[in-house]
C-alpha cells in the first residue's frame, strides 16, 4: 500500500501508461509546459517530451477530433479536455464521430480513445465552470463513462480504459484532487462494476465521483443514530451495473440516489427508473434523490453550498424516508 493524493494517483496512472505503451500520448490545453491546470500532468513533459505530452491550441473540437483520428490511426491517445465545461465545444466530435463510428462503419473501425476531464462544482468558480455533465454524457451509446471517486480508482482506472477498444470518458472531480488515501501496490479494478463502499442494511445510498465522500460522511452520521446505510459507488456510469445496484436495493429495500447533476434528467433519474423496472416489488418506500438544485451554480459560497448535494441533505433524505 502507498499513501497518495487523488491528483498524484492520476499522475502515476498516466506515467505508467506512457512508460508501458509507446502508442500512448497525452494531448490537451496546457498539459505540458504549464503542468496541467490541476497539476495532474506536472513533470510528464520532462520525462516524455513534447511529442508525447502535447500542448494544444484552444481548439476543443479540433483536438478531440484529432484524438479520434489518432486512435483510428493506431495510437492510444489520452485527450485531456481541461474541464467538462469546455467539452461542450467538442460534443459534436464525441457524439457524432467517436460514439457512432464503430456502428456506422458496420463494425469495421473502433476508436480506442480515452478522454479525461475535470468535472464538478464546489470551488466557487461560478456558472460556466461548475458543470457536472458526466451523468448527462451517460445517455450516449457507443461510449463508456468512468467516474473515479476513490484514490484507488484514480490510480487504476486509466489502464483498463486504455485497453478498451472503444471511447472512454474519464471524469475527475475537482474537489477530490487533494483527497489523500491508500492505494494497493497492484491495480486490480475493472471498469464494469459498481462497488459497495460501506455495508449497511437499512437504506442504499447510491452515488459516484465527487459525491461519494459526502455519502460516506452522511452514512457515518446516520450510523450514530442507529441507521445502517449502505453506500454504493457506481464508478461506471455507462454501462450501469444493474446487478450490483439491484442486489443492494433488494437487501436494503430503500434507496436514495445522490448525484451532483441537476435534478431533472439526472443520472439519478435513470437509476431510479431502472430500480422501478427491476425491483419495484422489493421497495418498502418511494425512492428519493439528492441532486443539485436546478440553478446555474452561483459564485457566492453560501449559495453554491445550497445548490449542491451536501451530507446534511443526504442525511435528511434518509431520515424522511425512514420516517425517523
Amino acid at each position, binding site marked *: 500500500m502507498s499513501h497518495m493524493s487523488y491528483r498524484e494517483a492520476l499522475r502515476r496512472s498516466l506515467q505508467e501508461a506512457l512508460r508501458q505503451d509507446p502508442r500512448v500520448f497525452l494531448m490537451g490545453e496546457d498539459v505540458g509546459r504549464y503542468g496541467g491546470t490541476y497539476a495532474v500532468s506536472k513533470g510528464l513533459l520532462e520525462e516524455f517530451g513534447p511529442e508525447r505530452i502535447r500542448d494544444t491550441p484552444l481548439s476543443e473540437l479540433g483536438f478531440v477530433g484529432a484524438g479520434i*483520428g489518432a486512435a483510428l490511426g493506431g495510437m492510444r491517445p489520452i485527450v485531456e479536455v481541461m474541464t467538462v465545461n469546455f467539452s461542450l465545444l467538442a460534443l459534436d466530435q464525441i457524439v457524432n464521430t467517436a460514439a457512432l463510428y*464503430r456502428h456506422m462503419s*458496420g463494425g469495421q473501425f473502433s476508436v480506442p480513445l480515452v478522454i479525461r476531464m475535470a468535472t464538478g462544482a464546489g470551488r466557487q468558480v461560478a456558472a460556466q465552470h461548475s458543470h457536472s455533465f458526466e451523468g448527462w454524457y451517460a445517455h450516449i451509446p457507443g461510449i463508456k463513462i468512468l467516474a473515479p471517486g476513490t484514490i484507488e480508482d484514480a490510480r487504476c482506472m486509466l489502464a483498463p480504459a486504455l485497453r478498451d477498444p472503444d471511447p472512454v470518458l474519464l471524469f475527475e472531480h475537482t474537489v477530490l484532487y487533494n483527497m489523500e488515501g491508500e492505494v494497493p501496490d497492484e491495480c486490480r479494478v475493472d471498469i464494469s462494476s459498481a462497488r459497495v463502499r460501506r455495508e449497511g442494511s437499512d437504506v442504499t445510498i447510491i452515488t459516484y465521483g465527487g459525491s461519494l465522500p459526502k455519502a460516506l460522511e452522511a452514512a457515518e452520521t446516520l450510523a450514530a443514530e442507529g441507521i445502517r446505510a449502505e453506500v454504493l459507488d457506481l464508478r461506471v456510469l455507462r454501462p450501469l451495473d444493474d446487478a450490483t445496484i439491484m442486489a443492494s436495493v433488494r437487501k436494503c429495500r430503500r434507496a436514495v440516489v445522490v448525484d451532483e447533476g441537476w435534478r431533472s434528467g439526472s443520472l439519478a433519474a435513470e437509476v431510479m427508473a431502472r430500480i422501478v423496472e427491476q425491483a419495484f416489488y422489493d421497495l418498502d418506500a418511494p425512492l428519493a434523490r439528492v441532486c443539485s438544485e436546478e440553478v446555474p451554480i452561483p459564485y457566492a459560497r453560501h449559495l453554491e453550498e445550497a445548490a449542491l448535494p451536501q451530507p446534511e441533505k443526504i442525511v435528511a433524505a434518509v431520515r424522511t424516508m425512514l420516517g425517523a
Partner: protein
Amino acid sequence: MRQSKGIAHHAPPPPTGPVPYDQEFSQVLLRDMLRIRRLEEKSAELYGAAKIRGFLHLYIGEEAVATGALHALTPEDNIVATYREHGHALLRGVPMGRIMAEMYGKKEGCARGRGGSMHLFDADARLFGGNAIVAGGLPVAVGLALADSMRGTGRVTACFFGDGAVAEGAFHESVNLAALWQLPVLFCCENNLYAMGTALECYESQPDLTAKAASYGVKALAVDGMDVVAVHEAVKAARTRIAAGQGPIFLEFKTYRFRAHSMFDAELYRHRDEVEEWKTRGPIHTFSARLKAEGKLDEAQFLALDREAEQEVEQAVEFAEAGEWEPVGDLLKDVYTPGGPA
C-alpha cells in the same frame, strides 16, 4: 445580401494543352469518371424506385476531382470524405456492388447497411467514411495524420470537404493543428460554389478560400476542378511535398454540381443557365474531347468504356438485389467492440 441573378458564377474556359499521360492511363482516368457517373445516374433512378432511401447526394459534374486526386495517392494513404462520396469510395477500390448494397441497406454493403449513401466505409481501402456532419471529417483527418507522423508510416491523409465546410470553426481548428504540427494532410476542398442552397459569396465575406488556409502559413492553391489533368497534377505534386515532411497543403478544386444538392432540392437558388453553362464544361465531355483530338481515344473506345461502366453498374444492382437483410436480432451489434475489457 447578394443574390445570384442569371449566371452568377461563370464556368472556366475548357482545359487546353496536351494531356501529359499515355493512352492507357488517360483512358483509365476517363473510365473512372464514367464509372462514377453511371453509378450515380443509376442511384438516382433507384431512388425514384424507392430502392435507395434517406439522403442521396450526387457527385455528377465533380468527377474530375475524386478521379484526378485518388489516382495520385497510394493505397496506403488515408481517405476521409463527406456524404457526397460514392466516387471516392469507388475509386478507392470498394467494389461497386458493395456500395450499391450499402445504399440498398443490405448486409453485403460496405457498412453492412448501417450507413447508407452518406456513410461508406472500408477498412481495407483505408476509407474512413463518409461523414455527414459538414467539416466533421477534418479533425479526424488531422488525427490520422498525427498518428502517421508519430509512427513514421510515410502515409498521407487526404481529406475531402465542400466549400461550405470552410465556414465551420472545425475547418480552422483543423488547419491550424495540421500546420502547427506540420502533419501530412492534404486538404481537398471541393468548391462547387454552393453549400446546399447558399452561394459561396452569400456566406463567405471573402470568397477566396485559399486565403483562409494561407493565414495559417499553409501552402494553398486553386485548381481547375473540372479538369482531371489539372487535379491529378496538383495532387501528385502536393503529395510529394507532403510526404517529404513539408507540412500540409490546401487545394481548392473549383468545380460544379450538375444535379440538385440532394433528392429533396427544388434548386430555387441558382439559375438554369448557370447549370447549363457549367454542363458544357463537364469533365467527362471535355476530357474525352481532348483525348480524341490527341488521338488517344476514338468513339468506339469511348462507347466500350461507357458500356463497361454500365455493365459494372448492372452487376452492382444485381449484387445488391441479391443481398440479404441483416437479421433484426443483430441490431445492437457493434455499438461496442466485442471483447473489450470487463
